[in-house]
């Protein structure tokens, strides 16, 4: 598959390209970025002497079969729609767009032009995802009582610009940008979140800390769920499902493991499930999945419609936003 990349900033160079060069099915033929330093670094760091370089997406015509869109979220919809209209299949980075309305336009464009549109929610490719789904749906932990999901660590992501923070280019921070992975995983497991209450620590800029509470409908019952997101401190970084007989938990940093705690004969026991062998690179699995969908004209693992569900939760949360209490900030002596 001849692949063009739109946006050669940090996520492309740190995450995508190391995976793409491992794949026998991918040939990176075009690099597009308005910042020439970014394309030059991508070419140099990943030894892509034959890849062409441009600042304009239209130059891809006739030279690529598919494209990865890794530009700031504000440009996801216009760039993706332009590529789809050119007859190019697209893997668009998360969050799919700034709004569900934009995401719908993208999905409609893909349908209209008969193209594949996949979304880069790579934690869906963690090895423990499907086993975890089976475990939480199994009587093993009993009736689900609560779902807790957290994503947080001190921001360490390498940034080549202020794009992460610039509200002209993105919608939010720890919740919108990194938190979308977690919201997507919860929605993928249990469906939509209702009765949303949301608070964050923004004072006009992008949030560093956020909390969401809501309800999931599991087996016809309302189950409370709470999610926390942080760019300033460590949280437990995973999903914990609390059942009447036990607890099942997955962690982002250990995508090969699942921990189950269950009371057996009145005594709590911890059961661990762990895959053998080195964990596969989820970015590699993601691009291989996309390449398969392109080749077979099939459905990618994460479609625009699927990505829209988590974006809808984020959208409703922002609409219900209340300021987070931060007495250490607000105090004015």
């Amino acid at each position, binding site marked *: 598959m001849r692949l063009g990349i739109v946006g050669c900033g940090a996520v492309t160079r740190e995450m995508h390209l190391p995976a793409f060069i491992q794949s026998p099915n991918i040939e990176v033929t075009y690099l597009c970025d308005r910042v020439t330093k970014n394309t030059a670094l991508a070419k140099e760091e990943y030894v892509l002497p034959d890849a062409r370089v441009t600042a304009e997406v239209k130059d891809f015509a006739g030279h690529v079969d598919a494209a990865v869109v890794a530009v700031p979220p504000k440009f996801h919809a216009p760039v993706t729609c332009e590529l789809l209209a050119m007859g190019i299949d697209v893997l668009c980075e998360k969050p799919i767009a700034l709004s569900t309305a934009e995401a719908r336009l993208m999905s409609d464009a893909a349908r209209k032009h008969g193209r594949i549109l996949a979304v880069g929610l790579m934690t869906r490719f963690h090895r423990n995802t499907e086993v975890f789904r089976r475990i939480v749906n199994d009587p093993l932990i009993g009736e689900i009582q609560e779902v807790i999901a957290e994503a947080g660590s001190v921001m360490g992501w390498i940034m080549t610009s202020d794009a992460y923070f610039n509200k002209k280019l993105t919608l939010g921070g720890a919740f919108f940008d990194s938190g979308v992975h977690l919201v997507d995983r919860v929605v993928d497991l249990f469906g939509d979140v209702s009765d949303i209450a949301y608070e964050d620590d923004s004072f006009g800029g992008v949030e*560093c800390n956020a909390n969401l509470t809501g309800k999931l409908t599991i087996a016809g019952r309302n189950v409370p769920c709470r999610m926390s997101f942080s760019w*300033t401190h460590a949280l437990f970084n995973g999903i914990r499902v609390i059942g009447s007989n036990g607890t099942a938990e997955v962690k982002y940093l250990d995508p090969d493991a699942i921990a189950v705690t269950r009371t057996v004969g009145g005594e709590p026991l911890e059961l661990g499930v762990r895959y053998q062998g080195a964990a596969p690179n989820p970015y590699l699995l993601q691009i291989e999945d996309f390449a398969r969908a392109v080749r077979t004209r099939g459905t990618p693992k994460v479609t625009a419609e699927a990505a829209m569900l988590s974006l809808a939760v984020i959208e409703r949360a922002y609409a219900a936003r209340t300021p987070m209490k931060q007495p250490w900030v607000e105090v004015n002596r």
Partner: protein
Amino acid sequence: MTPSKILLTGATGFIGTRLCERLKLHWRLPYRALVRNYTHATRIARLDTEMIPGDLGKVDTILKALEGCDTLVHLAHGEDHLAPKETANVIAAALHAKVKRFVHISSMSVHGSNPGPESCREATAPIVRRDESTYVVSKAKEELLVRRAIERDGLPAIILRPTVVYGPYGGFVLAAIQQAKGGVIGLLDEGKWVCNAVMVDDVCSAIHAAITADKGVGQAFFVNSDKAITWREWNLTFAEMLGQPVQTVNFDTAELRAYWAKQRPTLKSNLTAAAKLVVSPDLHRQFGKIPAVKSAIVWAKETAKARMGEEKVLAFKAKMSPRPRASTGPGVPMPNPSRIRLEAFPIAFSNDLLKQTLGWKPAYDFQAGAEVTRQWLEFARLIPPNA
């Protein structure tokens, strides 16, 4: 004066971030942050701070950042060996841009690691030229550059010398919590020495006073709370926030100083270290990956064994193997020289001059500042809730 816009260097650091919060939320003054590394800018990003990329090693980037600003607050202090040159660049840019106010954030450290009683007040406190700490020397050089620019070039600067700054996200607080998590904390001479703890909010209000006041230009001021505490009080206050029993272990400062003095590099210690490296199995393993070098190592070992005999080789090996350092207490690392400089500090700095000249006064005593810090520690999950 009322600034038209304030440029901050070091805006993503501990004091800088809190200053951005207070400028935006409390004083509603326009400011811009010069940012070298956006990764550290998350907390100021939530304020929708105007950020401009810059490098204090390049005067042109500082000049660009200064466009439209008439006030500069210089908080940045990066690598000790680079900081004086960077401060010289900031001064040059400020003079070129003709700023109306330059606030330089110096440090109590400019009076050295072990100052005498004359350093309690600004009028008699000498700035050191030499010290065992590279930070002290670097900060002193920076302040001297600012003073020279005041005297020679008429830079309208006010110098602030904060003491031990603490509060939410503060490094000294994190170190205290980290130490106490082990259940045992080390105290120097029972923790009797002076801790000049000042709450970060009080440092910010001193900066605000320095920006807006019509007095004090050309002067230097200590920024300290009204009452110094002891390091015992400091360490135990934060340790108790963990809600678990904490043991204390005492270290004799004189003995510690003597110990570390012996560790200073000499010709003998350099030769010993080099010899240890040459005979170290780790080095042999690494170099042994090169077949030719591996053969040479094997040959050298066999030759040494043949000439010295097995017993002498074993004795030599034992001498060269790293030996565990004698234990100094249950589970407490021996305080290093930088901690000794901090926690065996002899004097309390007066804040009278700052109060009298700029009309500033600290809003926090240690108990009040620690309580605000505790709320944040709980939020950041560094201490248990309701401990």
